[in-house]
């Protein structure tokens, strides 16, 4: 139904490459994926930096690390205790998610939001304060105790409010607060012993797969409840910033949304969580309706209107849902923070990624950073590749999918391969100044 978009100019390419060619689809294609890959990369980068700065002075070089891991296997960090720890963690998370589903079923939303706020404040205050103290002492920054005691609670309060009630703060602050929470939690997880961390990652990936896809799984139950009631689950989810329509071409498929009557503001960048009730479209068929999306008016509209005015079609762009229909995404609860896991589409249509995914990706990369930077680069590429594959599957299947399994599998695989195969090869070649 999309007829003439912006008029394609007759293409006469100028001799300079990259010069004034007419706007093609290449200009803005894939922008929404970049808007998710960017924050994930930033989170991983900050965790790697923190791990490098704060790791113990005797951080292992590639040679000594090989010796150490061989001998440290018996220091209480062996496989069985790691598996037991990981198993216990998964059981706790399952129980907590079922509890959350129960609370959601009884419409006890204040409980959930209170828990969300409490966990955000806890992470920021306790973990954040501890890491700040470690940084201050390691980098020998001059800051006295009184200023610190004044600055920390204020910053924590601001970030916690920004994380918990996104509708009242600018979206950049909300995203920054979520990233701060993810970074702090991920750093704390990297302090676990090595085998425990890897066992935990694998266990969480398997749990994720089961909880979302198996019909009785806790996350699936929660998702179905949310879908039945057309409500958003109150949880900490990162939603990629919606693409500004005026930049790019609106090549996106639209979900049929209900626009609030007469409100055509295409620039409303709307956050999702918490207070909005979205009338999610459960019809899996793809239809190309150009509807202006969203205002932040929650209590809106059950009427379906389709805008057929050609001149508004082009302007509207926006809004979201790049490839798939919006589905509320699934939740997973962490033991100390009320996070959401998994990937799906927000009611505004942008890609939503649960904070738990950020955390576990960063834990994997942080743990790789404790060995060597070559593993960091390899695991980073593997995780981004896995995320890309998950997004492709999301476009294909059009329902909420677990974001952990593919990335964690690839990450662990690449870590093992790099550590065993690649490192020797590259060291051999480059110390002889042989490159290809």
């Amino acid at each position: 139904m999309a007829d003439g978009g912006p008029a394609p100019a007759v293409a006469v390419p100028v001799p300079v490459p990259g010069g004034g060619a007419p706007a093609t689809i290449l200009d803005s294609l894939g922008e929404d994926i970049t808007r998710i890959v960017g924050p994930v990369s930033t989170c991983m980068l900050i965790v790697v930096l923190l791990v490098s700065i704060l790791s113990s002075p005797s951080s292992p070089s590639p040679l000594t690390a090989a010796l150490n891991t061989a001998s440290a296997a018996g220091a209480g960090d062996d496989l069985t205790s790691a598996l037991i720890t990981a198993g216990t963690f998964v059981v706790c998370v399952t129980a907590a998610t079922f509890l959350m589903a129960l609370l959601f079923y009884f419409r006890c939303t204040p409980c959930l939001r209170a828990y969300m706020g409490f966990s955000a404040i806890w992470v920021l205050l306790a973990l954040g304060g501890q890491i700040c103290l470690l940084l201050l002492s390691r980098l020998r920054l001059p800051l006295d105790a009184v200023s610190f005691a004044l600055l920390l609670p204020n910053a924590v309060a601001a970030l916690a409010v920004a994380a918990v009630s996104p509708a009242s703060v600018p979206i950049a602050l909300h995203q920054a607060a979520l990233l701060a929470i993810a970074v702090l939690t991920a750093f704390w997880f990297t302090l676990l012993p090595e085998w425990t961390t890897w066992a935990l990652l694998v266990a969480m990936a398997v749990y994720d797969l089961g909880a979302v896809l198996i019909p009785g799984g806790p996350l699936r139950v929660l998702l179905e409840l949310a879908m039945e009631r057309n409500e958003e689950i109150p949880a900490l989810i990162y939603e990629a910033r919606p693409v500004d329509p005026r930049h790019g071409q609106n090549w996106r498929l639209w979900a049929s949304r209900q626009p609030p009557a007469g409100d055509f503001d295409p620039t409303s960048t709307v956050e999702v969580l918490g207070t909005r009730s979205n009338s999610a479209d459960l019809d899996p068929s793809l239809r190309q309706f150009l509807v202006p999306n969203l205002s932040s008016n929650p209590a809106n509209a059950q009427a379906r209107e389709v805008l057929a005015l050609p001149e508004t079609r082009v302007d509207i762009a926006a809004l979201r849902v790049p490839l798939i229909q919006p589905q509320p995404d699934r939740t997973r609860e962490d033991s100390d923070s009320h996070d959401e896991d998994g990937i799906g589409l927000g009611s505004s249509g942008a890609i939503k990624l649960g904070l738990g995914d950020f955390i576990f990706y960063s834990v994997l990369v942080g743990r790789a950073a404790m060995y060597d930077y070559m593993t960091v680069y390899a695991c980073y590429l593997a995780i981004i590749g896995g995320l890309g594959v998950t997004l492709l599957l999301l476009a294909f299947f059009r329902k909420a999918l677990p974001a952990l399994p593919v990335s964690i599998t690839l990450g662990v695989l690449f870590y093992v391969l790099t550590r065993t195969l690649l490192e020797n090869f590259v060291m051999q070649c480059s110390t002889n100044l042989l490159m290809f």
Partner: protein
Amino acid sequence: MTVAAGAGYALIALGPAFSLFAGVIAKKPFLVLTLLSSTLFWLVSLIVLSGIWRGFLPLKSGAWWPYVILILTSVAFQEGVRLVFWRLYKKVEEMLDAFADRIAKPRLCLTDKMLISLAGGLGHGLAHAVFFCLSLLTPAFGQATFYVERCSRMPFFLVSAIISLGFLVIHTFSMIIAFNGYGERKKSDQIFVPVVHLIAAVMTLINLAPGGCLIGTPLLCVMAALTLQYSWRMVGQRLTEHEH
């Protein structure tokens, strides 16, 4: 080495890559995704190569002929991977064209295709620089630096940074030449790329001789300049003939 020196070496190896990224690639998100996926591709090819050679390492440092075989197999494998990358790219191009038709937008023009091949080549070059040069720099911060016996005039890190720079240029621009050659079926382009890659890799063998790096590294830079010039000429030709 100090942080300042380390940053300097990293910028020698990666400076042009950063400017290309900031100036050309960061503007179009699809190119960023192409860069990431081609980096991943190169990494996978490197891992496969290291898997194949695992049984034969460590090589005795005296003999030089195992290194010749290493270089030959590695270059051959990577050129094969380039062909696979080309096939994938054709499929993606078809999908993009079909998509563009569906939403009534113009198809990919010539500069778009060249930009995609530039991003692909830059991904390969970036992966090379990161894994061969950068990953050895960062653990070495601290006091003192490292010299290799055979190359006692320059610090090891400086030599590896310059070699990485040369290879970055070679990889980036030979991808443009290669894609053009495969697309237009021009034999000269198709032959040029593997030959240049092979010659450049063989030149690093000169580094095995004592004092060889003083000869090998500048020659490598000459190869990089050659690739750059060939690519410039080819692109200029294509664009002018496309205009008419």
